[in-house]
């Protein structure tokens, strides 16, 4: 009886240990303003995302590795094409938004945004005829998902560590 109890206990401990070791850990979460359209991991545990509300107005938010806001555009009203993240690293965010007219912006890690400009016209970070932003959801230590509350339709960006 004692032997059987010991064996069962060992199996439970080993099994539980394995499950724990392989389980994901939620690191942080951030409730968004509207439905998330694109997430771009910065490679260091943070990310930027684009959301778009029912009026088709978009906003861009850049979260650091602790889930704190590093930069936010506010609502980009009058945007028929929304906004697209063109690149995100720990040091800078590049996005193209419609702020009166389409324009690419560069944001440094202090949250200072500057336009990317050139003579003779306006600069975009992607082809105008194919304004689609691809998502990058993972980095070396974890990944991002969108948690959608099916009752309220509130979107939440959730950061998971692989273990």
């Amino acid at each position, binding site marked *: 009886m004692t032997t059987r109890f010991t064996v069962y206990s060992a199996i439970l401990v080993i099994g539980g240990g394995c499950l724990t070791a392989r389980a994901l850990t939620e690191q942080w979460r951030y409730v968004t303003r509207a439905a998330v359209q694109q997430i771009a991991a910065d490679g260091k545990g943070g990310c930027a995302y684009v959301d778009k509300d029912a009026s088709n107005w978009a906003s861009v938010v850049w979260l650091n590795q602790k889930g704190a806001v590093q930069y936010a*555009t506010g609502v980009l009203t009058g945007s028929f094409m929304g906004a697209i993240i063109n690149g995100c690293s720990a040091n800078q965010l590049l996005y193209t938004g419609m702020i009166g007219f389409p*324009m690419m912006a560069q944001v440094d890690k202090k949250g200072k945004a500057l*336009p990317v400009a*050139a003579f003779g016209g*306006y600069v*975009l970070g992607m082809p105008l*005829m*194919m304004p689609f932003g*691809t998502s990058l959801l993972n980095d070396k230590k974890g990944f991002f998902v969108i948690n959608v509350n099916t009752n309220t339709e509130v979107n939440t960006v959730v950061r998971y560590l692989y273990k």
Partner: protein
Amino acid sequence: MNNGILTTGILLGALLGGMCGMAATQRWSYDDAPAIIGIMADGSGGCSYVRWETNDLPSAVVWLDKNGALIYRADLTTNLPVTIVNCTKKQLTYATWQDSWRFVQVARDGTVTPVTAGDQTLTVPILAQELPVSFTTDRKGFFGLLVRVPSSRVTLIRYDNK
């Protein structure tokens, strides 16, 4: 408030065209095309892209080095789908549709080698056929598209991050 500052900055930037000490520095520019799609950064400051013509004219694949010099250009015989599969500073691989998908690898000296897989058929993911994505950043900078006003023709621009 932040949005207002950005809007003002963008307007000023567009008007002054890079004369107001912006963080990103324009390094070089290339082309004056009806449209540019499928930009693929090579990770070392160069890139390749598809030069898309209008009115059913043929398109072209263009490969530029880190200085904006032309390494390779293929003027295609149709405007059918073209997908750039991979681009590094040493090679370019792309696929064109001509009855079936045909893949070729281009060496830095311009040598073109067909990519085959025995009796297997190579193809391109369906979404990449219709909507080729662009990868426009690397460690030191990024690529943008200058849309000229009023012609709407497009020029590729290389920017350094600072």
